[in-house]
């Protein structure tokens, strides 16, 4: 077999038993790889009702067939598990270097099950696998942990680990790799912490052979050249990273501001990509073999927020920045560094603090409870809260549960802007209706990475859709959800994929992507087949959700009943009821959102 190793590493953390397993080639083909393989195993191996922080939960790291190939941005992996934040599914994506190194161990996927009684890390050097004590790094932050583990294994190795937040089971804990890259969302770091698994260290030289290496090289060069044409014209993603986006969303009136009380922020100029470039940018840093290179290495050289690291990205600016009403770029950048060091998702961290700020301003939570005043815009209080969340100290313990549980605890559930208990990313769906349908139906709760229809509604990629209408949005959301499922399963970055390996003429049809899959694996897919496989994966994820009891596709009070007060989308709420029935019909799901027997049959899923 080509492209895939068809090999899984299984580590039982309770018994410390390490086993290797082969993957059935039919399963490999039908579920593509990455996110697809992972849900196949998760669905078959765990009770979806199990407590996400119990030993019964299964933690899966999965690369795709295009990971570690010449394909540009073939540097991704997925972390798939049951989420302690949402009680539903978590599938979080990350790039950097670790995923490529992981694939070079000779395994496509790592499965961690059970729970260790003491802190451990797993060192995988090709087929030599050791479960080692992590007592000496337990309690340490991400950069230090990474340095220590590289020093005692190999400088050639790459590290994915948790920080204090994951150890302390903070529900917004991320799994960080290569220090600054994050499989961020849905509390995957807390699952790792619950298993007492501090880190995974990977290295090796076992790239799987490609079916047609020459063809793959040519197609990869062609794709990189296409990217190069855009870069030459001056791509914002290269020049500013995603930090150019606040100006765009502010213009459209969908920039989450002060916990979604507004859609525009009056100080956007102070915290956008231009300000970041002028003040703190050192250089752009790519994930492995990426021609786009959207990451930013930055440094706040002096003052109270002194530090060095990566970011902030757009999603951090819209949460810890505008979401909290913060306009101090140095403080915002520092907050981002802290989240990376403690190992926390900036979106859920920022939007949970934002919810607490609103509750403080409305008098629902007192200064005594918080331990300090917490008004919108108070960047020092925000920074103080991040540390308290990572260590679950004082009020930080309430914040560490996310905004849904926080708002409920203090008697004001209407304050939490979440779907499936997960905080919204940086697009207010009242001014981007398709995003509203996406957040409501997403298998992992509110997330742009589930099928970012902002590509069309906001950025005009590949074509511009009117974000304020509901017409055609059911079809748009389905198309993007399936496309993103495919990209996540293949092992590419979405920033590259939609524009460069899907054809625009046929409305994001995966022509070049399926060709890449064939050159890599020899599986002989048609574009129709890979899209059908993506739909199979999406539906199996949906079945996991239903079995986990996370059945309601809805949006929070603010999105359905509180019209946006400002900006171009003023007066709008999300018209979910206009889109949801059509969406279910297109998906082949019943009126409650459950896949019908016919649909499951058509996709070859258990029914």
């Amino acid at each position: 077999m080509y492209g895939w190793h068809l090999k899984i590493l299984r580590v039982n953390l309770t018994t410390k038993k390490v086993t290797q397993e082969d993957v059935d080639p039919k399963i490999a083909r039908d579920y593509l790889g990455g996110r697809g393989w992972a849900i196949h195993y998760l669905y078959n191996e765990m009770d979806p009702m199990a407590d996400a922080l119990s030993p019964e939960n299964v933690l899966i790291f999965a690369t795709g067939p295009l990971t570690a190939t010449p394909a540009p941005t073939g540097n991704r992996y997925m972390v798939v598990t049951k989420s302690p934040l949402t009680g539903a599914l978590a599938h979080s994506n990350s790039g950097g270097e670790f995923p490529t190194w992981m694939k070079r161990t000779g395994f496509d996927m790592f499965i961690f099950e059970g729970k260790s009684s003491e802190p451990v890390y797993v060192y995988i050097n090709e087929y030599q696998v050791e479960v080692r004590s992590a007592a000496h790094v337990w309690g340490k932050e991400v950069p230090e942990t990474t340095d220590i583990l590289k020093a005692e294994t190999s400088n050639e190795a790459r590290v994915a680990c948790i920080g204090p937040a994951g150890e302390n089971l903070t529900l917004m804990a991320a799994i960080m790799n290569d220090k600054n890259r994050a499989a961020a969302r849905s509390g995957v770091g807390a699952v790792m912490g619950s298993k007492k698994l501090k880190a995974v260290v990977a290295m090796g030289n076992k790239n799987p052979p490609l079916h047609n290496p020459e063809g793959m090289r040519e197609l990869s060069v062609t794709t990189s050249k296409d990217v190069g044409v855009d870069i030459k014209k001056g791509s914002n993603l290269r020049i500013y990273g995603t930090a150019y986006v606040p100006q765009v969303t502010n213009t459209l009136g969908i920039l989450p501001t002060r916990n979604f009380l507004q859609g525009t922020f009056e100080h956007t100029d102070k915290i956008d990509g231009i300000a970041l470039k002028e003040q703190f940018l050192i250089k752009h840093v790519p994930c492995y073999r990426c021609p786009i290179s959207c990451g930013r290495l930055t440094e706040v050289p002096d003052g109270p927020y002194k530090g060095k690291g990566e970011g902030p990205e757009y999603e951090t600016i819209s949460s810890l920045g505008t979401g909290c009403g913060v306009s101090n770029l140095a403080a915002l950048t520092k907050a981002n560094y802290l989240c990376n060091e403690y190992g926390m998702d900036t979106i859920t961290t920022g939007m949970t603090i934002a919810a607490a700020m609103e509750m403080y301003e409305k008098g629902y939570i007192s200064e005594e409870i918080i331990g300090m005043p917490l008004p919108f815009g108070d960047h020092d209080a925000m920074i103080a809260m991040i540390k308290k969340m990572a260590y679950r100290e004082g009020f930080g313990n309430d914040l560490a549960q996310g905004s849904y549980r926080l708002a409920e605890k203090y008697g004001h559930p209407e304050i939490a802007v979440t779907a499936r208990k997960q905080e919204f990313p940086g697009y207010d769906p009242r001014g981007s209706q398709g995003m509203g349908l996406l957040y409501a139906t997403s298998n992992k709760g509110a997330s742009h990475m589930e099928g970012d229809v902002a590509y069309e509604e906001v950025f005009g990629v590949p074509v511009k859709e009117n974000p304020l209408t509901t017409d055609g949005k059911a079809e748009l959301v389905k198309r993007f959800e399936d496309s993103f499922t495919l990209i996540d399963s293949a092992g590419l970055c979405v920033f590259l994929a939609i524009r460069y390996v899907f054809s625009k003429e046929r409305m994001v049809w995966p022509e070049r992507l399926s060709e890449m899959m064939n050159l890599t694996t020899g599986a002989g897919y048609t574009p129709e087949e890979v899209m059908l496989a993506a739909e199979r994966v999406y539906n199996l994820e949906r079945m996991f959700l239903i079995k986990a009891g996370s059945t309601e596709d809805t949006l929070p009070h603010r999105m359905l009943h509180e019209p946006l007060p400002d900006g171009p989308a003023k007066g709008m709420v999300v018209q979910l009821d206009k889109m949801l029935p059509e969406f279910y019909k297109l998906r082949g799901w019943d009126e409650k959102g459950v896949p019908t027997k016919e649909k499951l049959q058509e996709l070859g899923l258990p029914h």
Partner: protein
Amino acid sequence: MMIHVKLIANYRDQLPPEAKNGVVEIDVPDGTSVYDAISRFDIPLDDTSVIVLNGLTVDMNTPLKEGDMVTAFSAIAGG
């Protein structure tokens, strides 16, 4: 009539020196369309560019009114 033009990120370089925070006020004749206004600037109107009027998605031939804001940016991916 006076209108505003805002150019975001890499397009900002094409603004005249009097622009502030990426926005310039210009005087255009009545009947000027969104397309006419943006064509005065040296930005590539290709498949990566997006132009909105007062933050809204409109036809490029829409005639402008006093005080309107035309905004342009380019994107190759989402955020």
